[in-house]
């Protein structure tokens, strides 16, 4: 490997932080919580999670906290996701598909605009984080 210049050091830092910044509990612009109870998983929550990870990777955004939690209690409308953009009220989305979550990610998580047609309502049960 060629020797580093001062600028290279900064480039490596920026690149590596994309992976590691999640460890430091810094500022996140949004939190996306996938409900992964047994009901959620049976209804396809795993695919929703994978689709979200793919979105984050492809868009190269690293200030989004992707987490999971247990069943939210509304098992008939799984898979469900709660999106909480910093400074705004959390919004629950129900009956999700990979297509729907892509749209939600672009419009709400990145754009800050609630996708009303998929939303259940505003508010969230208490989560662990």
């Amino acid at each position, binding site marked *: *490997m*060629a*020797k*580093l*210049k*001062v600028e*290279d*050091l900064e*480039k*490596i*830092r920026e*690149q*590596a*932080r*994309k*992976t*590691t*910044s*999640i*460890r*430091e*509990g810094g500022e996140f612009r949004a939190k996306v*919580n*996938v*409900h*992964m*109870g*047994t009901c959620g*998983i049976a209804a396809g929550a*795993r695919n929703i*999670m*994978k689709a979200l*990870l793919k979105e*984050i*990777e492809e868009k*190269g955004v*690293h200030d989004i*906290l*992707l*987490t*999971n*939690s*247990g069943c939210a209690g509304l098992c008939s409308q799984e898979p469900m996701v709660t999106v909480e953009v910093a400074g705004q009220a959390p919004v629950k989305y129900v009956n999700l598909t990979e297509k729907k979550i892509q749209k939600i990610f672009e419009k709400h998580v990145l754009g800050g605009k609630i996708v009303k047609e998929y939303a259940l309502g505003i508010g969230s049960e208490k989560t*662990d*984080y």
Partner: protein
Amino acid sequence: MPEKAKEKTYRLHLMVCAGTSCVSNHSNEIKTALVKEIKKHNLENEIMIVPTGCNGFCAKGPILVVQPGNVFYQQLAVKDIPYLVEEHFLKGRLVKKFMYTPPKEKTPIPILNDIPFFNQQVLIALRNRGLIDPEKIDDYIARGGYTALAKVLTSMTPVEVIKEITASGLRGRGGGGFPAGVKWETCRHAGEERGEERYVICNADEGDPGAFMDRSIVESDPHSVIEGMIIGAYAIGAHQGYVYIRKEYPLACEKLNIAIGQARQYGLLGENILESNHSFDIEIHRGAGAFVCGESTALMASLEGKAGVPRAKYIHTVEYGLWNRPSCLNNVETWANVPVIINKGAKWFTSIGTGDVTDNPWGGSKGTKVFSLTGKINNTGLIEVPMGITLREIIYNIGGGIEGGKKFKCVQTGGPSGGFLPERLLDLPVDFDSLTDAGSMMGSGGMIVGDEETCMVDMAKYFISFLQEESCGKCIPCREGLRCMLAILERITKGNGKEGDIEALNDLSKLMIQSSLCALGQSAPNPVLTSIKYFPEEYDRHIFDKKCPAGVCTALYEMDIVPELCPGCMVCARNCPAGAIRGEKQKPHVIDKSKCIKCDVCYSLCKFNAIKKS
């Protein structure tokens, strides 16, 4: 620099502690089990496993911290992993039974930062602990690593670097407390004056029993030490550095080797670092584990391939050190502090700690100190605290108090040649000068706590015996003085102490302090002197009453069963290896003192506190 592949995103990072303590508690097997379970649930593209250096809370190992969220899981076993992976990592439900619950409380604390052991620490030398994989230089760079080096090479002259370090009041963390900036300046000056090559050396020959600060820093963040050394070398004008590390630290050696290799690949070690005129490289020298080789002149002799014995120090090593050239020796923790001081500035560093170092680098103790907290304490582990914190805060708030709710008796600071401090000095601020004034010392940062069952004479004997074995034997006061001391202490603990023993110990101590060649002999009497000073009644009881009040010296106590407390459960009688306990079921038992070997088996097994030492 070639372009790298796009970084993969993981939603969870599992920070598995892979420090020596957790590895000995099977953390590698935990890691293997995690890999297996994660694969079983097809989570390998969502979850990343990161082996980290020592987390610090060694008492609770093996430890796993889950990020994001900083969820702290402790004392995991391989059999717990399938449940943990399914519950938390797949279904998102935190598992309370693997969390930490403080002694005497019932509610577990899920988040690391909320645990008292962690939330009162201030991390400078250990800034990256548990957050990076020590085998990945990019992890270190991501946390701001090597930015201090870039700053120094692009915008500071060597003299400015030395000025900054001097102004920070950074004093040697190996125990001597010598101001690092003053050392660097003298070394640079000596080299320039004589036009000679000079060296920087890192002392990683941590030999104190019960101390593991330097090992943990090297294991968890080797690049912080390397970066500190490169900066030091630039300031002093050195092109070659050595790390003297003991062979008993295989994991630390391995991590350091990997780190040096990576730094060379990136050109951070070698010719023209970051396109500057500064060239520098580091070589590892493995010590054979002699305690005395932690002493600067002995260490340098050993580095040269000679026998590791000290020499008189009226000629300083900064002027005539390794191969008679100016050599700057600092310990692991001191080097690890350097990049942070450069980045955040001397002014920031001096805001932490005690005293005033504006005009006098000896005027105070600035920054933090890493301690290994061991002995009869609940939270054994590695801690970093601001200078000036009291012993009480360390022992009770961070350390969680004495094991088993017993009574505190003493704390031993400064390693084998440090001293014992009693309860009345618990509010003493922990800094270089306060500890020395009390007859102990900061040392490299060992802190051993003793409870009511600790015998002070026995403890003093233990340390003197250690030092006597480790004395190199070059000078007579140390070699013979320690032997005489040990003989007297052994006599006292066997019940043959006599009038005049204390005076003899005091005289010997004085002689050794005044006439020993190196710090080993000069400070060796500390355990004896402080135990006599702060616990005179214990010596008197041993010498005149032939009793050991703590019940440690086997010749000086007897085991007895209190008949009123003994329900006759037979547990002691069944387990006595000497067959010394007799008695019928549900009737008080009796110990036959002529057969009793004082192994303490009955004492530790009795649930009714019926066995007493008298």
